[in-house]
């Protein structure tokens, strides 16, 4: 992610909310906080329909973090 941002490619990662503390710590260690969108935990044992619903919820945040458009 940092490599892509360094090459001027806007990047965002999507992760379960459980991932947030680890991501923060890594961001602090690297001195760089990439854009992140968090989805509700758990992820692994979701049905396909539930996974698709997570994507529906996440798309606005993804769009906002990769462009200058405001959320929504």
């Amino acid at each position, binding site marked *: *992610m940092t*490599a*892509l*941002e*360094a*090459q*001027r*490619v*806007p*990047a*965002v*990662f*999507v*992760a*379960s909310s*459980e*991932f947030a503390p680890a991501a923060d710590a890594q961001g602090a260690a690297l*001195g*760089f*906080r*990439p*854009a992140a969108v968090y*989805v509700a*935990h*758990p*992820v*692994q044992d*979701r049905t*396909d329909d539930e*996974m*698709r619903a*997570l*994507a*529906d919820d*996440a*798309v606005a945040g*993804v*769009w906002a*973090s*990769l*462009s*200058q*458009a405001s959320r929504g």
Partner: protein
Amino acid sequence: MTPRQLLDPTSERGPADRPRTPRPESLQGLTVGLLDIAKPRGDVFLDRLHELLSARGVEVLRFRKPTYTKPAPIDLRREIAVRCDAVVEALAD
């Protein structure tokens, strides 16, 4: 470990953090890469994101890391950087 501190050589009018790369005004008409980091079921999530972004006028390209446990290989990163205007990595848990 004691944090390493440097003194700021700038006018300090901007933030001290390393900035993210500038974003385009909109993603419409651009190419967005979806990078599957190879955790199970991530593909279902990304398939849906693919539909949603395409519906908003985005050209979507799909990529997949060979394994979750290591960073994306340099060729893959280069390919993404060359072919895409932005990238989404998913889905970590």
